[in-house]
């Protein structure tokens, strides 16, 4: 049981990493980015190319791939997302859907259908583990992902709420015209925001490639988990995404305990349950407290309250 819980939580760290960039776009910039998975896979291919053809190990490869991703993000915003975001919330769905098809198939055209993985290039990290008493194994890569998730999501949350640029990003996302009127260079800020997103997407791609295998069309299946984590986490909160990832991971692990096919069903069912409880809070006072606890921003408020004397 403890093992199940532990593995579930660690799995949550993986989901949180995968969801991070998506959540950033979804909750901060209000863009449903259907190309998120494809972009992550593209980054994984970048790392694979460096590792397999140039002998640069993936962790070093990140030093090359992440800046490239940032530049791609910047270009993406300038030439694609900016235009489409102006047309409301729906249009970016079409844009990023189109983008994902283009990316997937270009990858296929370039790399074929072969399954690839970054795991062969990182020694035994992909399956190395620490053994705890009670036959519990903790995967090193899983811990690394969890730590990364905490660092990225925490760092971004801190950046968004405490830094002028972070505030500018949020303001621009809400109303770019008015952002201009208060002196924010909306285009620039959005391009920076997308660049940040793409860096996190690049990291997601790296872990995706190290944890399992990928092929040109591998982006889609990961997308739904990422969305679930982001939505459970609640709009506007990146910490929430971490919580969302963990809730999802736990639900799946526990679901698998109940019934072998319960892994996916458990995750989906808990996702819907969380939404339901959140909705019912206003109607059923009993659920009020549970819902408030489930809303990850409650945690944040608590922290804020603890910190500020008022």
């Amino acid at each position, binding site marked *: 049981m403890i093992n199940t819980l532990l593995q579930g939580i660690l799995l949550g760290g993986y989901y949180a990493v995968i969801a991070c960039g998506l959540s950033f776009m979804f909750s901060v910039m209000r863009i449903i980015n259907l190309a998120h998975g494809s972009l992550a896979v593209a980054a994984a291919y970048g790392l694979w190319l460096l590792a397999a053809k140039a002998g640069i190990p993936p962790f070093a490869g990140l030093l090359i791939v992440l800046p490239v991703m940032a530049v791609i993000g910047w270009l993406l915003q300038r030439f694609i997302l900016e235009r489409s975001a102006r047309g409301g919330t729906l249009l970016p769905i079409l844009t990023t859907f189109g983008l994902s098809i283009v990316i997937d198939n270009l990858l296929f055209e370039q790399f074929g259908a072969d399954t690839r993985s970054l795991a062969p290039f990182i020694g035994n990290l992909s399956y190395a583990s620490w053994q705890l008493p009670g036959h519990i194994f903790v995967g090193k890569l899983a811990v690394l992902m969890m730590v990364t998730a905490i660092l990225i999501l925490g760092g971004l949350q801190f950046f968004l709420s405490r830094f002028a640029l972070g505030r500018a990003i949020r303001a621009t996302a809400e109303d770019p015209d008015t952002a*201009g009127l208060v002196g924010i260079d909306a285009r620039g800020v959005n391009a920076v925001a997308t660049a940040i997103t793409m860096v996190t997407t690049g990291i997601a791609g790296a872990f995706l490639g190290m944890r399992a295998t990928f092929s040109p069309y591998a982006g889609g299946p990961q997308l739904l988990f990422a969305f679930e984590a982001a939505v459970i986490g609640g709009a506007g909160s990146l910490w929430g995404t971490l919580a969302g990832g963990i809730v999802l991971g736990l639900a799946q692990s526990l679901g698998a305990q109940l019934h072998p096919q319960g892994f996916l069903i458990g995750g989906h069912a808990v996702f819907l349950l969380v939404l339901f409880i959140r909705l019912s809070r206003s109607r059923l006072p009993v659920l009020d407290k549970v819902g408030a606890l489930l809303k990850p921003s409650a945690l944040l408020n608590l922290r804020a309250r603890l910190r500020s004397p008022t």
Partner: protein
Amino acid sequence: MSHLSIRDLDVRHGLLQAVRGVSFDLAKGEVLALVGANGAGKTTLLRSIAGAHLPASGRVLLDDEDLAAVPSHKRIAKGIALVPEGRRLFSQMTVEENLLLGKSCGRKGEWSIDRVLDAFPNLKPRRHAKTGHLSGGEQQATAIGRALMSNPDILLLDEVSLGLSPLVVDRVYAQLQALLTSGTTIVLVEQDLARAMSVASRVICMLEGRIVLDRPAAAVTREHVTQAYFGLHRASGERSAS
């Protein structure tokens, strides 16, 4: 030398011409009351000065520099700040964050969050509330505060007192008075004529996109303005030659 000058400005919304051939000059420290009926084009005019809406033709000059190619976020860095009609706050962000955003352009000056909260004490308890949850008046106060945070040279206020209770209106006007002494130029859209003329050094009345009256405040009576609203001045060539 005029500080802000508008030359033959035409602004359109699609087919509709909202501002037609408007020209005027403002000296530093002047307070202009811009009045006119519903739909006269006041908001459109202010927005095109602030760079939020591009004019079809004509020019906006700041200290003789043409602003045509200057986007809105750079105009505020040059000192032109707008309190937009309808507040346009960032509703997901708190009062404090909205005010801090007013500092984005990086202009130095004496306005700070504390000073804004002193000017609008009713905001103090709502400092960490999201502005989307504020009352109408609280929002308006935040919008004014946000513009002040950029320490503007030229402050454009669209419907300043809209939604403010009389007590707060008094405070706003007291603040404007204080700004005047520090040499800020102000353009004020205000329907309460008595109020507007108590601070204004000049009154411009617009009708259907045109200026139909432009006079020093001292030389204008309530009747003049009221007549101008209905277009009675058009024939008598009241437009100033400045």
